């Protein structure tokens, strides 16, 4: 085990215990910047943690940015990138002007392992498990796709009603505790201004809507900001990204995360699909974790800075 977050190895994949232990170390090392919040429990009873980065000393709900990684458990580069982001925030605060300005005015919430049961399962039983681990009545098939379980055109085309498929939407909106925990948190907080949900792979930056081809009311601004973010990302290592609405760029996806957050009034709602090399898919070699995180961070900073400078 790493003794601290400086000696933690960011160039390999880690188990859930190792990531949770990393979070504890980061909190202990940065007590005035980082705290850990439990927002709920998984179906199998694991705690669901969010790191809060805040420079405020008051009990207030400042405008905030939400970032989550690992809602699809097999997308290991996302949890690994989330870990790197957490360290990056603590390293760059008071060093990087843009991040410092953001953190002096806003809070950042980072959920590194959004689907802990699924992630633990990928380490113990099935590396390619994607869904949650909840039991479904009347079938031996397990889990639901937590990115089809949100109350945004739930159950409409672009999700499956068959519990044995990878895109099974679940019994009802928010039936997955991993989803409900975020829903409750967002609705209680009431001041989240950007919500960024990070997946892999395909190299895409997407915005609402996924359930309809109709453009979102803020389509023009979302598209311009996506372009700026993708340009910043590509400038780091030359990785090429496409961007656009979920529906027009990939396919119809109902009940997805960012359609719900956008519907809640969070204008800057985005979802990433991080890099693949065209050869590895979800099995991205560990040597690519840091380059992936570095380029994604450039895009995240673009979105966070824009959010900070365009209050609404």
């Amino acid at each position, binding site marked *: 085990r790493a003794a601290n977050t400086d000696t933690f*190895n960011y160039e*390999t*994949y880690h188990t859930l215990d190792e990531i949770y232990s990393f979070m504890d170390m980061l909190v202990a090392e940065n007590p005035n910047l980082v705290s850990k919040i439990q927002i709920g429990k998984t179906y199998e009873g694991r705690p669901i943690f969010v790191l809060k980065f805040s420079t405020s000393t008051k009990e207030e709900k400042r405008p905030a940015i939400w970032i989550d990684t690992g809602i699809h458990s097999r997308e290991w580069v996302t949890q690994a990138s989330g870990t790197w982001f957490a360290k990056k925030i603590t390293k760059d605060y008071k060093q990087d002007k843009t991040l410092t300005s953001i953190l002096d005015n806003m809070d950042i919430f980072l959920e590194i392992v959004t689907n802990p049961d699924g992630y633990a399962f990928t380490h*113990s*039983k*099935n*590396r*390619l498990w994607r869904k949650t681990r909840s039991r479904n009545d009347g079938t031996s098939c397990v889990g639901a796709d937590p990115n089809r379980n949100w109350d945004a055109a739930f159950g409409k085309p672009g999700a499956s009603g068959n519990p*044995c498929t*990878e895109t099974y939407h679940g019994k009802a909106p928010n039936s997955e505790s991993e989803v409900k925990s975020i829903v409750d948190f967002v609705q209680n907080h009431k001041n989240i201004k950007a919500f960024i949900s990070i997946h892999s*792979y*395909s190299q895409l930056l997407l915005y609402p809507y996924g359930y309809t081809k109709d453009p979102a009311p803020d389509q023009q601004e979302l598209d311009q900001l996506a372009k700026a973010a993708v340009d910043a990302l590509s400038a780091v290592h030359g990785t090429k990204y496409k961007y656009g609405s979920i529906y027009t760029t*990939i*396919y119809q996806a109902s009940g997805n995360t960012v359609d719900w957050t956008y519907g809640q009034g969070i204008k800057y709602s985005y979802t990433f699909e991080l890099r693949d090399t*065209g*050869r*590895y*898919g*979800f*099995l991205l*070699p*560990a040597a690519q974790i840091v380059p992936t995180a570095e380029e994604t961070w450039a895009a995240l900073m673009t979105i966070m800075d824009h959010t900070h400078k365009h209050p609404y």
Partner: protein
Amino acid sequence: REDFVGHQVLRILAADEAQVQTVKELEELEHLQLDFWRGPAQPGSSIDVRVPFASVQAVKMFLESSGLSYSIMIEDVQALLDEEQEQMFAFQA
């Protein structure tokens, strides 16, 4: 632990809307137990699918008889997973 020996990931190129529909028909053949890593979307965009060893021949025949071009993106999924595990063990050691 789930074994992925002999599983292949195929990259399929659907040239037009009709071919996208053909891949969607393939997606519905549940007995093949396919795992679409990147689903059928628009003509020209690639589709990646993990095919269990037992279904490899049937899927390739389906694609060839439908005039769909494909390449093998991952020859043996388990070999990659073994490499990944070795790297993690090496780090832990």
